[in-house]
């Protein structure tokens, strides 16, 4: 049995993981100031002049993204009758099922395809590859790259994990073991290690599918997104009784022709928000090759130690968050 003093000693020992202050400050000072209005929800075609005027004001920068959310969420029906949720649900599930063997990227709208997961919606027991780079510095240089590879757990574990809204790291996440590969372009080294890691929240298209399968969405209406016809969905976020920040709004846009997810938007109670596109690519040899980190000639292999896997990546780390 351990004592509380053992715990105090363990936490003190973790001070060795303290990052270098100079590195942190360099990132802070180099960081370009982002506009608080980095991204807005795309406006839907309004019927009433009053709403059109409201959206015009939004386009002029007079309202924030949050205000636009409210305006569009309670706006009138679009010109085309929205598809009924049950029918849409079936089409969405079929579309995601048909793309389960694709490569899934989640870049910032219009951003480069960094990161990526293959397959998009893995079967239990299937080998999964998640690239966590390339990580580009403020100077435009690539300084890190990496990949996690693991086998998707059994149907039971995966089902429990993916189908539960609470299945995030706060509830323990999904514990996995596999291989972590990292390329350090600053030091010209690479490493490949057996590692254990925790997968937070639902994996790729599997998570999207679970939300849709559980009927946790409302059809808002049709819209146009990047020149393509889309259907806007409001994901019904269940009450969260944990401590804040909570997710307070979540939207998804799906392609009105293929029914594949196109864009996601999440807003937290502390005002932060994230926006990302879903890009499905066919698993051709060329596309799969692009998913793998490249180890340049002359790089030396480094050993493995605790905490030396590739730098974890999140959607927000890959493409940043808009802050208000």
């Amino acid at each position, binding site marked *: 049995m351990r004592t509380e003093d053992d*715990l105090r000693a363990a*936490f003190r020992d973790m001070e060795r993981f303290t990052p270098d202050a100079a590195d942190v400050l360099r990132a802070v000072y180099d960081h370009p100031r982002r506009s608080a209005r980095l991204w807005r929800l795309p406006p839907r075609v309004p019927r009433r002049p009053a709403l059109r005027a409201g959206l015009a004001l939004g386009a002029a920068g007079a309202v924030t993204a949050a205000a636009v959310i409210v305006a569009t969420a309670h706006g009138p029906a679009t010109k085309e009758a929205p598809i009924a949720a049950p029918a849409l649900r079936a089409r969405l599930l079929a579309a995601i099922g048909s793309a389960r063997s694709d490569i899934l990227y989640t870049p910032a709208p219009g951003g480069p395809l960094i990161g990526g997961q293959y397959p998009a919606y893995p079967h239990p027991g299937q080998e999964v590859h998640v690239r966590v780079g390339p990580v580009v510095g403020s100077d435009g240089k690539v300084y890190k790259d990496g990949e996690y590879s693991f086998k998707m757990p059994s149907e039971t574990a995966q089902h429990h994990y993916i189908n539960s809204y609470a299945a995030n790291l*706060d509830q323990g996440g999904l*514990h996995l073991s596999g291989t972590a590969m990292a390329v350090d372009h600053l030091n010209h080294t690479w490493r490949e290690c057996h*590692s254990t890691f925790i997968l937070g929240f639902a994996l790729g298209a599997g998570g999207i599918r679970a939300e849709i399968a559980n009927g946790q969405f409302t059809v808002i209406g049709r819209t146009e997104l990047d020149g393509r016809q889309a259907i806007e969905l409001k994901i019904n976020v269940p009450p969260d009784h944990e401590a804040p*920040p909570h997710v307070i709004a979540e939207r998804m846009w799906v392609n009105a022709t293929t029914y594949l997810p196109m864009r996601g938007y999440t807003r937290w109670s502390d005002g932060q928000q994230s926006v990302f596109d879903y890009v499905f690519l066919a698993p051709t040899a060329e596309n799969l090759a692009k998913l793998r980190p490249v180890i340049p000639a002359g790089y030396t292999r480094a050993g*493995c130690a605790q*905490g030396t896997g590739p730098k974890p990546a999140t959607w927000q780390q890959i493409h940043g968050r808009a802050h208000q």
Partner: protein
Amino acid sequence: MTFEEFAANRLPGVLRFAAVLTGDRALAEDLAQEVLIRAHSRWRKIGRLDRPEYYVRKMILNEFLSWRRREWRLIPSGAGADVDRRSAPDHALGYAERDALFAQLGKLPARQRAVLALRYYEGLSDIEIADLIGCTPGTVRGYATRALAALRVEMNVRPGQEPAFIEETT
């Protein structure tokens, strides 16, 4: 306090807090960078506070907890080992026990881990922790009790101190 004064005098403590919360240097760096980029842009307001470092620590804590929500993330939770097993593992008992405790801490839910770090590293009371996290002291005790049970840590029940209890938190 200017941001530069904060960086010179208070930042090391904030970075140590990030390291203890995450137990991983890369994650701690990410956490600190994300928070400090935001804090830097709002420093005109934060710098006027009596203790700006407390505000930044709270930002660090909130960011750490919000990472766990609705995001897709892979977090290393244990020691790596070369795939070709060229590295010999260390079998010293003390290191093994330490590594085991680290690994178990890494598997704790975020709030449980944060509560332990605030209680046993920062030395805060349950009331102070509750204020920071935004829940009741009873909930804090519930998180701590479950975390300590998972880690097989025996609580020192001091005279006059009530034993911790589990409170409904979900």
